[in-house]
């Protein structure tokens, strides 16, 4: 238990080991640890950000889907309306066409009637005269009775 040179030997050794630790051990390890800490923190940050981004994207997707649905519903509505319109138009056209055809037919019929009437008139006069001629058995002046019979025929 004597105090001797060992004391200084230990002091020198101590100084040397502290220097070694200070130069080659501590900074290297601490630096690596701090860097890793930063890396981990960054990683966690990135994960958080990604999560937020995901949420945002999901919200956006939902919004877009809703919009698309609305748009689709709008388009369908419009299409329905358009279809109804087309049908209405077609109906109207059909009605108009029908009317037109009916009118044309009526006109034709009228014309035919008039023509038949004309023909009838023409032949009635002749027939009546021929009848009258037969009845009278005498020759009646065609010229003087013609006006009378025509007047009769016009009344038909």
């Amino acid at each position, binding site marked *: *238990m*004597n*105090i*001797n*040179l*060992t*004391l*200084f*030997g*230990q*002091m020198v*050794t*101590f*100084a*040397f*080991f*502290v220097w*070694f*630790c*200070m130069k*080659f*051990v*501590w900074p*290297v*390890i*601490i*630096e*690596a*640890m701090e*860097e*890793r800490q930063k*890396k981990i923190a960054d990683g966690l940050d990135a994960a958080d950000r990604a999560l937020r981004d995901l949420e945002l994207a999901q919200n956006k997707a939902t919004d877009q889907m809703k919009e698309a649905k609305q748009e689709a519903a709008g388009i369908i509505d419009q299409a329905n309306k358009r279809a109804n319109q087309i049908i209405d138009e077609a109906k109207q056209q059909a009605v108009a066409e029908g009317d037109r055809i009916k009118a044309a037919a009526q006109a034709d019929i009228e014309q035919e009637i008039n023509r038949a009437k004309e023909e009838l008139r023409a032949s009635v006069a002749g027939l009546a005269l021929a009848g009258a001629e037969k009845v009278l058995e005498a020759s009646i002046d065609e010229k003087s009775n013609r006006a009378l019979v025509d007047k009769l025929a016009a009344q038909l």
Partner: protein
Amino acid sequence: MAGENPASTTEYIQHHLTNLVYGNHPENGWSFAHGAEEAAEMGFMAIHVDSMAWSIGLGILFCLLFRTAAKRATTGVPSGVLNFVELIVEFIDGAVKDSFHGHNKMVAPLALTIFVWIFLMNLMDLLPVDLVPELLMLAGVNYQKIVPSTDPNITLGMALGVFILMLYYSIKIKGTGFISELTMHPFNHWGFIPINLFMETVGLLAKPFSLGLRLFGNMYAGEMIFILIATMFAAGAGAGLIGGGIHAQIFGEQTSALFWLAIFILVCGVCGLNLKGKISTGKTVLLCMVFMALGGGLTALGGGLMQWGWAVFHILVITLQAFIFMVLTVVYLSMAHEDH
């Protein structure tokens, strides 16, 4: 048991407490001391070869271990040695940040060195007290203390190193403030300067001394208890089957390494079988105790169990002492950095 067949317990203990000293003897010149008396005659011009060698060796072990880890330090996933080293570094970093508030790049590595190095030196206490001295005795080295921290030269050397740092930083940071701290502190009046100076100087010097002597005292006492338990182990030899076991019956006072080797192999075999699940743990402990009792007698068994118990308790002591030395160093340096 130890060495040149010391005749009594006192000699055994003394032998264990003697360093291997190389020094300038007044008669023999520079030589190894033969016994404590010659070592004392050498005075200051001597060196404890064993303390220095173990302390330097353990310091190198510390450097190698931590340098290996530092080289492998990556920012990626740490593994193996790096994990272990980073655990210690982080622990020290936390302790230093808790109690040191100045800016000094030296304090944290200093604390790490102190903690690990002192822990390793203390750890030597857990090796069986007779193992290394006995083996070196076979190699012709007569004295060997393998726990450097039971040598006041070692602990005071480190404490003095810390003291020098305290003085250096006190003067560097505080300048003349340090002088006024020493002279004007408890009583702020010029008339009290001598009293103040005396009190503050005592307080200042008490720091390194308490630091070094606390570690030395604890480790010395712990080592002493290991030695005392070992003397019980030795006292039983030759006292018949109960005291000395078969060993004493067969070999008498002669030591037979082969016999102990056989016991060692038996104990290892039983433990190995237990690890493979062939025998229950209770049976294993019982068998081991029977082997030990057969080998060294009941006192040897008792001694072994007590050594084991004290060693378990001592694990706490060595860690705590290393930690206390480190924390106090940091606190003292922190005080040196505080400008009033």
